[in-house]
């Protein structure tokens, strides 16, 4: 384990290079350039607002700006998670040439996919910031939680990314299963709704480790509150476990990569 981490550190230049390539290629290929990073979150935010508006109509509760801010804040990390898992899942398959021909720590591929998605998240965050300023969300000292919550999200995405990347190399249908899970995952994650709406049953939704992170972000940005610490600890623990498990799983399968492609 220690040697593997040392080796990964030795190849950090390559991680940077592959990330740079992934970002560059993504922005070069699409006509819209940087708009690409914003399009997906904008769509999610808009569908979120529609869902919240419908909910408001049904419950006879008017739609408040805080609700809109909350949906917008939670959509971005969700879009990041979906895109990092999707790109990691294909990262080894798309780089078959390198996987079978040249030696280096292969976890660089899923990691680069996550980092490239993180770059998209930063671009989209710029747009979000403008949006939040426009709707006068305001700010508080709780914003200090943001980096910690985002890092937890990145760790979780990396862990899951490594697992699906390795698995999809051995079983070609993993890709489709992941795609289905990502599509319907939004209904099992508090993106469009708040856990509070479910009353006591809300805690079951927080068992999804993404839930507490999104709720935490919404709390500190939109509602100017501290995140729920115990649930955050749960998510962080889960993320670290996923990262460690994913790394061990990936390294265990790595020697067989070149043969299975």
């Amino acid at each position: 384990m220690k040697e593997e981490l040392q080796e990964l550190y030795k190849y950090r230049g390559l991680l940077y290079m592959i990330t740079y390539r992934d970002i560059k290629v993504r922005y070069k290929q699409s006509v819209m350039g940087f708009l690409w990073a914003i399009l997906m979150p904008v769509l999610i935010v808009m569908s979120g607002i529609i869902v919240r508006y419908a909910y408001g109509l049904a419950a006879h509760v008017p739609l408040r700006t805080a609700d809109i801010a909350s949906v917008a804040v939670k959509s971005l990390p969700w879009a990041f998670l979906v895109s990092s898992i999707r790109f990691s899942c294909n990262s080894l398959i798309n780089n078959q040439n390198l996987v079978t021909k040249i030696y280096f720590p292969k976890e660089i591929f899923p990691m680069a996919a996550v980092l490239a998605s993180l770059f998209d998240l930063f671009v989209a965050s710029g747009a979000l910031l403008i949006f939040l300023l426009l709707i006068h969300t305001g700010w508080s000292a709780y914003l200090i939680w943001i980096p910690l919550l985002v890092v937890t999200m990145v760790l979780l995405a990396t862990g899951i990314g490594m697992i699906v990347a390795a698995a999809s190399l051995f079983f070609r249908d993993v890709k489709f299963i992941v795609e289905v899970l990502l599509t319907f995952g939004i209904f099992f994650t508090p993106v469009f709704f708040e856990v509070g709406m479910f009353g006591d049953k809300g805690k079951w939704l927080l068992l999804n480790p993404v839930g507490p992170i999104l709720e935490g972000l919404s709390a500190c940005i939109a509602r100017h509150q501290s995140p729920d610490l115990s649930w955050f600890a749960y998510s962080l623990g889960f993320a670290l476990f996923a990262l460690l498990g994913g790394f061990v799983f990936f390294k265990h399968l790595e020697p067989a990569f070149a043969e299975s492609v």
Partner: protein
Amino acid sequence: MSDVALRMEHVYKKFRKGEIYNSLRDLLPALTGRMFQQRELREDDQREFWALQDLSFEVKRGEAFGIIGQNGAGKSTALKILSRIMKPTKGCMVVDGRLSALIEVSAGFHQDLTGRENIFLHGTILGMTKREIESKLDQIIAFSGIEEFIDTPVKRYSTGMFARLGFSVAAHVDPEVLIVDEVLSVGDYVFQRKCVDRMKEVIRGGATVLFVSHNLRSVAEFCQRALLLDKGRTVRIGPAQEVIAAYLNRSGGEHSADTNSSPVSISKVTVRNESGERSQFQSGQKAWIDVELIARSRCTKLSVSLYIRDEYCTLVFNTSTERLGHGNFTLEEGEAFLCTFELQLNMATGIFHPSVLVNRYDIQREYDRWEPAATIYVSSPDDVRGFVHCFPRVVRQEIRAVSEANLAGATRRVASGEACRSE
């Protein structure tokens, strides 16, 4: 640092052939099926095959070592194990020093990036740091000879340009142990020469080189020692020339005709000199090719053709018994026919493949073809290149003073020549 740069000890590699479950949809039913049927497990064992068996060798620091063998002999598997892409099933492998593998020169390229961006990407993949690449960037671009297109996305490159850029990057990694697999066969002749010179420079610089190739000429040129593999087993290991000779003696050709159905077939072809069968000749030496045919039924108006091709399948020489003025011949059922071609091997250094054909000219029918029937290695003490040896000598060479008037004329000619080119 020890004297040995690279060592393999009793390395075995096992692969599974046949169906591999590569989707969960196939795997799950197969797993449940397997729980009830123990027999299937045993069948699995039969589907395994050994790509490498008991491979052991050592390469000393600063040595160039070649691995040769036919397709499927296990050369690439050996390289993949050495470059740590694959793990051996059994045995161990030690590499001492920074290792770089040129297994496929342009594997790291991305189609949508420009040549310059790809140099950085590919260089990093091959283990160079960003600073190293920056310092060598101009050299790399100059070596590739595609300065003009360096800021064009590589998807618009021709195959040759692509490979040249790939090799240029690879050639500027300064490894202690270099593994090379067939990368010298890219680009045109001029570029190939450049690559060969660069390889020699790397070897002179004290790097250990492991070289895998079908191109026996370059193995002979670079390597002091070599290893011959066949079906995963070591056949011979020793000085490169001896190992190449052993390889040439083993490789037999293929019959086109089914020997049981064709009315006449080639039963034997041997290449020899005065003292017996051999595969290595000196340029200008005589060689005899004995051909034996057997007829299963009556055949008329037959003749035997002889073709000689070089290692790139270019036809170097062709003749036939009929064209040499011996007329055609007829064979009755159960008869054998023997003939011998005497040749003078006026070829330059290289590998040549004689092939033999039995045919009937007037109806253009080919009865049997043995291609290649043998492989021979022709060597020459003089440094001559190309197909033929014209036995050249320089019979006059002098340096003479030129008058002012002539010199001015020459300068004018050069100047006008350049003007033409720039237009």
